[in-house]
């Protein structure tokens, strides 16, 4: 293995990227764009979700319980409330049907009365039929529906505790072990990083090599003293570097724009991405021998990318993948990269914890490089 020749191939690969401004720009802006879009779409807490409250509650001798709940609800930022008072004000359910609100909360006219009765009964050790609060939800976006329900449930608990000194019979004591301040973006930033690295190295590699094959430059390189291993290694070095640069762009964006926190070692994250990038470019190389034209090469992309996006735990955990498909997840290298990056970034794990994932990725990278070099050695 002649390192100078290998670096010569790497330099050539990077030089052609430098001349191709559009592609070079794409390589930097694509991940930036991805993280920004995803970040703004899913990121942060929900805010100002439109909710209509139809308050038909007649109140009771100790004041109106619905009013207390409404006041408590409006103190938060999650919901933007429109309160309609009085009998027959509006049909809340219809408002949700018309998509004028994500949710409608309807307090029945005897809400306070029944609640008071139920509270009295509870104190007396008997039971009574509790007050009814109907919530009509638009489940189009499960995230929003879930957030509204959670907000209502916790608010009611707070009101019960503050106004009546009542505690639910079972107390759950929850303590966040990892990701105390984690938001959804913390969860998927590592995923997007892995996805971008894989996508770009695979794409660049398959297209470059189809080009090298069809124009004859690969053959020409093979007639020089450069070995198959040096050619494959040179490409891996160049595209691995591209993957690293991208990851840095994503990390910086995620940290600056979305306050993503990196608990563990950034170097470990980058090492993970490097292994994934090298493996993916090797896969691109291998598939380039099947594709006859660049157009055919492009057709491979969805075949490789869709399973990775859907099954590798980028946006939702592997546990959310149907059990039937889960074995497939474990065959996708991105799964391990995302798992490792996530553990390092959110849980703050180090090499001692994520070595199994890194081992899998290293094996993937090594296998792809060896197979690539071997496939070049075989003459027709």
């Amino acid at each position, binding site marked *: 293995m002649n390192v100078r020749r290998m670096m010569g191939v790497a330099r*050539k690969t990077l030089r052609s990227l430098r001349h191709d401004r559009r592609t070079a720009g794409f390589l930097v802006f694509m991940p930036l764009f991805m993280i920004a879009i995803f970040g703004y779409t899913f990121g942060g807490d929900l805010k100002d979700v439109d909710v209509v409250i139809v308050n038909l509650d007649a109140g009771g001798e100790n004041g109106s319980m619905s009013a207390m709940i409404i006041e408590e609800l409006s103190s938060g930022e999650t919901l933007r409330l429109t309160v309609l008072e009085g009998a027959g004000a509006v049909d809340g359910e219809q408002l949700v049907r018309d998509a004028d609100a994500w949710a409608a909360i309807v307090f029945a006219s005897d809400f306070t009365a029944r609640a008071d009765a139920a509270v009295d009964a509870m104190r007396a050790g008997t039971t009574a039929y509790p007050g009814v609060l109907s919530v009509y939800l638009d489940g189009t976006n499960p995230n929003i529906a879930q957030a509204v329900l959670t907000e209502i449930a916790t608010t009611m608990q707070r009101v019960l505790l503050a106004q009546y000194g009542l505690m639910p019979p079972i107390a759950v004591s929850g303590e966040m072990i990892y990701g105390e301040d984690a938001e959804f973006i913390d969860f998927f930033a590592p995923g997007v990083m892995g996805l971008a690295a894989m996508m770009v190295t695979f794409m660049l590699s398959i297209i470059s090599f189809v080009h090298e094959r069809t124009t004859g430059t690969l053959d020409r390189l093979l007639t*020089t*003293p450069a070995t198959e291993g040096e050619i494959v290694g040179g490409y891996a070095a160049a595209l691995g570097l591209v993957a690293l640069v991208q990851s840095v762009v994503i990390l910086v964006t995620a940290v600056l724009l979305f306050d993503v926190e990196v608990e563990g070692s950034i170097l470990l994250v980058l090492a993970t991405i490097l292994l994934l990038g090298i493996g993916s470019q090797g896969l691109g190389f291998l598939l380039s021998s099947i594709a006859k034209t660049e157009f055919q090469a492009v057709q491979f992309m969805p075949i490789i990318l869709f399973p990775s996006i859907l099954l590798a735990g980028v946006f939702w955990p592997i546990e959310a993948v149907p059990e039937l498909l889960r074995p497939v997840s474990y065959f996708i290298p991105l799964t391990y990269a995302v798992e490792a990056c996530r553990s390092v970034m959110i849980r703050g794990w180090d090499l001692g914890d994520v070595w199994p994932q890194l081992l899998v990725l290293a094996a993937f990278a090594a296998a792809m490089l060896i197979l690539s070099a071997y496939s070049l050695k075989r003459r027709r």
Partner: protein
Amino acid sequence: MSEGTEDGEDRPAVVTRGLGKSFGDVVAVRDLNLEIGRGVMYGLIGPNGSGKTTIIRILSGLLSASTGEAWLLGERVPARANRPRIGYMPQEMAIYTDLTVHENIDLFGEMYSIPAEERAEREDSLLAMIGLKERRDSLVSNLSGGMKHRVSLACALVHDPELVFLDEPTVGVDPELRKGFWDYFANLKARGKTVVLTTHYMDEAVRCDAVGMMRLGRMIAEGAPMELIESTESATLEDAFIAKAREESA
């Protein structure tokens, strides 16, 4: 013929014994027995599809032969050890269009492990030879077809090889420049290099020391161009080819 990589000066530049290649049912080359001495300019001539490229690709180590064997500078093909001493210009352009002229030549210089200083000198003289000194930093994709061809030639010669294979080096090169190319090949030969080239413009091959006439994968005649012309009482090498082809069919 012994194997081995040591370079006895007496060993011919190219030797093939019973060399053949089939692609499925297509027999591209059959039973080729070549012997090309050192310092010779040898032309493989014949129409398109007659097997010239296939021969060059087998000798360059890019294709495996179906039958027979071959030696380059005494080393059995694929002659890995002798690669630094062999040059190859493919029939396709086979240069990086997304790199500059300089970057292309430099890359191949690097692949032959030529020290940076010497590489720069070689590049300078090659650029002068192909007349592209001013275009050194142009992207190859911005060059004309003929210019690209010249860059391709320069890439094959960057390591000053002893034996060089040029597959259709003059295709798409304008007549004026074509003469320059041939002058350069003659110059290589004068410096003791062995040049093996192919062309389907048969007439220009009269400048070769020897030509092999290829037809349907078979070598139908071999010899010095003038001898072939005279023995067939032809006016040109192309007429001689036609006469030989008739002889063979008969």
